């Protein structure tokens, strides 16, 4: 059996050697797809859960213990499972005074040299320096929220009322605490001596000690032991789980979109291989028949073809994995810290491998079915002038076009292969463009995804009415809707859902209602898809929930596009709330004049002493998708071209005889070229148009499906714009014709003898 294998390997080697370029192209296409998938997944993982990267890079501590006094560090270090200890550091509460506002902060002591464990990651400016003791390093998300930059004044009031003029030296990130404002108070690192100046009273500081564990799963056990070791000193404990939870974004839409692209990538990989292998097998049918006449069994032929083409695919996958690793390590070292975790990586590799094998199995099976009688070479084309062609001749189309068109569709299998080989990548490219348009639409029309208000203003220390007046005084603010966000308890559910009271029933906030209607009266509400799914209700149903003990009964009259909380949000007018919850309003949602720059308005309003938050457009969170779209479109275009090359090679082989005949009939080389280009280009153009049409009609539906699945709700999907679609069609058809032209020209010029091979 071993030597029988030798015969198979000999054939595989010879075949690969005979088509090095094509084989390399196959490997490249698969490698490109796998690279794109892995990088996309890495970006997604990193983007939706920054904790992992931050924690890894800062060598963070899994457990932080806040205690009154300095604990027995050596005892903590001896605890089973603890590998290292950070601190203990002093930490003191203080108040930051900036632009007329007073913001509570925590000042934490840090050595001037970077600590080994729980090391803050400096992003901008300088680290602490003993020579400039009044410099502080501010946690970046907090600094961003307050508009602080390196060099900004950092005026701190201690608990004793004394004010200290410190300066922001740098901004840093940390995996030991969540982002502001989800995690409060804001954090600033200072030198120990500075901390002592701000808070001289030792009784008002606390000590924080970080424990780094060998196995994060033992966290709970270690916490118990640490609390026991430290007796009654422990005030509170935070673990990495809380930090991670606070950093996690609602990533269902992103995940689903990525899954869509993953599916598209897999389909593309399958297509690339099926096309390459299928085309190759079609070209080799005679050789395969010969092999069978020599005594190769059907099983051996299948095994040989699967081995050959499968190896190319697996090689591509391996290359893709390596390249992706290199790219994430070197080219993207700044943005991505940690390579993709094992689970998704394994899923991608196993998924593509399976796809590859299935894609290869079909042509291999086809090859195995070849009867063992080697047919005479190049069976004469069985084509006949179709009715269409006759009509074309009647209306005096150039003969080259007619002949080409006849060729294109009389040989069904290659024609179908070409059409599919072009249509499927084209369809996926169009879907990708649809996603792009959808994202553009998010940004251009935020109101259509429920973000009519670019800013929300919280009164802070002002009264609600003052805040509203100050906000409305700004030239760019068009409207201010009073609002409150409250968690409501749903009967029969152990969890709460977010309710959002915004605007009045008579003057509702412009929610993007996609089904039903806007609430127009007290006791009416609109909901996101996520909420409808969660409660299992439909538009027109009544829901009953309790907010802070007060029952609330509303009728859901419409569905809105709801990008927040996975769509599990119920929205209604402020007047539907009990007065205790509604007055004064927690915040005002500000609708700006079209074209106004939200960041500028925000800066102006902050200058007025208002606490202003800027809405995060879902498109910003989905920006990673754009990178993937570009990469995938490139790879898909390559795949389409590769399958076209296969098709034109196949077409040329079939045409060797016709060429001589055509020339003998008196066609000029140019006409021969035109015939060949038409023969390959026509099915390709048909494929392009079909693919684009299918893609355009499906992209909206698919994205809406994704939207529905993610809770945001259907109604967000957009088809690619007509201009974009037209440009894509033109480029694709042009490229197809160009690819068909090169071999056709060469063939038309070559002298072709009229003999059997």
């Amino acid at each position, binding site marked *: 059996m071993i*030597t*029988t294998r030798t015969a198979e390997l*000999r054939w595989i080697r010879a075949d690969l050697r*005979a088509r090095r370029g094509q084989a390399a192209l196959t490997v490249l296409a698969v490698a490109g797809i796998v690279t794109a998938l892995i990088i996309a997944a890495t970006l997604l993982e990193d983007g939706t859960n920054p904790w992992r990267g931050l924690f890894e890079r800062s060598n963070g501590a899994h457990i932080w213990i806040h205690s009154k006094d300095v604990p027995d560090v050596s005892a903590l270090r001896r605890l089973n499972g603890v590998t290292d200890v950070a601190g203990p550091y002093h930490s003191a509460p203080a108040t930051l005074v900036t632009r007329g506002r007073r913001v509570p902060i925590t000042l934490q002591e840090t050595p001037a040299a970077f600590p080994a464990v729980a090391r803050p990651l400096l992003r901008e400016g300088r680290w602490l320096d003993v020579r400039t003791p009044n410099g502080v390093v501010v946690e970046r998300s907090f600094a961003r929220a307050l508009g602080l930059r390196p060099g900004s004044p950092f005026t701190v009031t201690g608990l004793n009322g004394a004010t200290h003029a410190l300066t922001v030296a740098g901004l840093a990130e940390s995996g030991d605490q969540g982002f502001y404002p989800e995690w409060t108070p804001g954090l600033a690192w200072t030198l120990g001596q500075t901390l002592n100046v701000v808070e001289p009273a030792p009784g008002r500081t606390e000590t924080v000690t970080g424990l780094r564990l060998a196995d994060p799963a033992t966290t709970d056990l270690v916490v118990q032991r640490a609390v026991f070791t430290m007796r009654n000193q422990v005030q509170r404990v935070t673990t990495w789980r809380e930090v991670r939870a606070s950093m996690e974004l609602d990533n269902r839409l992103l995940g689903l979109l990525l899954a869509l692209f993953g599916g598209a990538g897999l389909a593309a990989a399958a297509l690339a291989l099926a096309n390459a292998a299928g085309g190759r097998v079609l070209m080799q049918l005679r050789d395969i028949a*010969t092999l*069978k*006449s020599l005594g190769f069994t*059907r099983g051996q032929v299948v095994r040989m073809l699967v081995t050959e083409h499968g190896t190319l695919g697996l090689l591509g996958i391996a290359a893709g994995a390596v390249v992706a690793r290199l790219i994430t390590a070197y080219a993207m070292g700044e943005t991505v810290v940690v390579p993709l975790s094992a689970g998704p990586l394994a899923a991608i590799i196993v998924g593509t491998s399976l796809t590859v094998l299935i894609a290869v199995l079909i042509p291999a099976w086809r090859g195995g079915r070849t009867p063992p009688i080697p047919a005479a070479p190049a069976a004469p084309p069985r084509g006949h002038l179709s009715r269409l062609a006759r009509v074309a001749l009647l209306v005096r189309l150039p003969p080259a076009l007619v002949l080409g068109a006849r060729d294109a569709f009389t040989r069904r299998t290659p024609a179908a292969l070409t059409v599919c080989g072009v249509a499927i990548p084209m369809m996926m490219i169009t879907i990708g463009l649809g996603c792009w348009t959808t994202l553009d639409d998010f940004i251009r029309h935020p109101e259509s995804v429920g973000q009519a208000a670019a800013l929300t203003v919280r009164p802070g220390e002002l009264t609600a009415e003052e805040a509203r007046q100050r906000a409305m005084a700004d030239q760019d603010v068009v409207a201010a809707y009073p609002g409150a966000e409250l968690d409501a308890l749903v009967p029969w559910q152990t969890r709460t859902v977010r309710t959002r009271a915004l605007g009045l029933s008579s003057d509702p906030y412009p929610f993007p209602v996609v089904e039903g209607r806007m609430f127009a009266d007290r006791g009416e509400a609109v909901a996101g898809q996520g909420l409808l799914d969660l409660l299992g209700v439909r538009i027109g149903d009544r829901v009953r929930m309790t907010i802070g003990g007060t029952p609330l009964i509303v009728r859901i009259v419409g569905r809105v596009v709801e990008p927040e909380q996975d769509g599990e949000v119920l929205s209604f007018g402020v007047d539907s709330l009990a007065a205790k919850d509604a007055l004064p309003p927690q915040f005002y949602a500000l609708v700006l004049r079209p074209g106004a720059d939200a960041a500028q308005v925000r800066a102006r309003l902050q200058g007025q002493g208002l606490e202003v938050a800027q809405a995060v457009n879902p498109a910003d969170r989905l920006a990673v998708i754009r990178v993937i779209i570009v990469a995938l479109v490139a790879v898909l275009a390559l795949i389409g071209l590769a399958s076209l090359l296969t098709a034109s090679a196949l077409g040329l082989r079939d045409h060797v005889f016709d060429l001589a005949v055509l020339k003998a009939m008196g066609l000029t080389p140019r006409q021969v070229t035109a015939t060949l280009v038409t023969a390959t280009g026509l099915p390709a153009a048909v494929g392009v148009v079909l693919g684009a049409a299918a893609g355009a009609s499906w992209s909206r539906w698919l994205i809406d499906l994704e939207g529905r699945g993610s809770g945001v709700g259907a109604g967000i999907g957009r088809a690619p714009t007509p201009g974009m679609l037209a440009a894509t069609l033109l480029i694709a058809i042009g490229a197809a014709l160009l690819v068909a032209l090169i071999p056709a020209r060469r063939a038309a010029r070559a002298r072709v003898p009229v003999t059997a091979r």
Partner: protein
Amino acid sequence: MTADAPVVRAVNVVKIYQTGGLPVPAVRGVDLTVEAGEFVAIMGPSGSGKSTLVHMLGGLDTRTSGEIWLDGRRADTLSESGWAVLRREKIGFVFQFFNLVANMTVADNVELPALLGGVSPRQAKERRDYLLGELGLADRAEASPAQLSGGEQQRVALARALANQPRLLLADEPTGNLDSRNTRDVLRLLGKVHGQGQTIVLVTHDARVASMADRVVSLLDGQIVDDGAIPKSRRRPLGAAGDVVELRS
């Protein structure tokens, strides 16, 4: 299997093709026995079923009914892979269009059946060197089939068919695509291997090729109409004082 069993025994073999729902009989009840060492030529007009018969004898095509015994063993009931294994052990095939594997070198083409038959690569190479040497192609071992002339390709195909020292050499119009000089070369080789005891069944149109055989089988409409040895010439052997012209007058 048994030493005295005929190499080929076909009993009432029938082949009916279904074309467009209509049954078209190609071979209608053929009985044929070929003893070891015999050289049988099958002649007949095109469409008489001679290629089909040879394809069935080699298992390239399935019989509709009847029995085919090869080397004392019933073969018509074998599965496709059973036939494949039988072919690689006992049958060498030569086709009209040479059918060398285009991607493989001459050497690889000749070694392939030996490797397939389970011979070690070293032995396969030895056998290949011997065969190519015998056929005067030793210097073309690394050439690709496309670089060879038709005659050379057919000689390589013959070497490939003989690589496993098959019990039976089947040939389907081996000279149908060759000019007269290349035909003469291939004929000389066929004569040589037959002289060494090779059993050959060959389909041909070419009287020169058929005249090599010990026995000629004529097919007409899928049936055998004549089966017998080519007689010795009734006149004195030609040559010493040749009379070709006399033959014609």
